[in-house]
């Protein structure tokens, strides 16, 4: 599990994906601090790490990255158990608010470099 606050290469993500799930890595993004944790076994572990580092749970969103789909809309999958938050009116495992989706995309596109 790694906290990314500068950049991470796609090559490193590909390596992580092969060691874990084979085709994806789990990521939790903090849309306020514009950082992310990558390569946890569960989104819940990544969420816990960010909260320990001072993140607010309401700013955290779970996604999956498919490194072999880099450059396509399928690279980022908005899906995680931790996203289901009735208190924030997010009633699915996805990210229901399109503005939040866009914020996540921008953060990922800034942090992940080819």
């Amino acid at each position: 599990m790694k906290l990314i606050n500068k950049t991470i290469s796609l090559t490193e993500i590909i390596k992580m994906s092969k060691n874990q799930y084979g085709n994806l890595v789990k990521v939790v993004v903090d849309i306020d601090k514009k950082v992310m944790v990558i390569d946890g076994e569960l989104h819940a572990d990544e969420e816990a790490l960010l909260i320990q580092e001072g993140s607010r749970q309401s700013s955290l969103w779970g996604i999956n990255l498919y490194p072999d789909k880099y450059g396509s809309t399928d690279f980022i999958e908005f899906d995680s158990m931790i996203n289901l938050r009735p208190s924030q009116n997010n009633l699915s495992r996805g990210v229901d608010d399109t503005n939040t989706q866009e914020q996540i995309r921008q953060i990922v596109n800034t942090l992940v470099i080819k």
Partner: protein
Amino acid sequence: MTTRWFKLSLMEQMANIGSEVYRAIKWQKKDLTDSKKSFYRALELFNFTLSDPKNRQRLKEVSRAKELFSSWYLGNSPYRQSAEEWERYFFQFNLACRLHT
């Protein structure tokens, strides 16, 4: 992974299995290779859940869910099930875990 897995409640375990089920279903239409990877991961997580000592008294639902989902996914289920029903079933576990967040 099993050490970490056994620390989760049964509800959290089923919700996490649901994530893989959802991915297996989603990728069935777009990328069968990715779909199968998620399907195999779901089976692995089902097996971890079944081997968790704390679940010993609650195995029936987990093992039935595993069998029925596997046979549905592989296309040889004698029962009428749908992707929506599977997603709805596992979603309840997710909701139960996150109700207080």
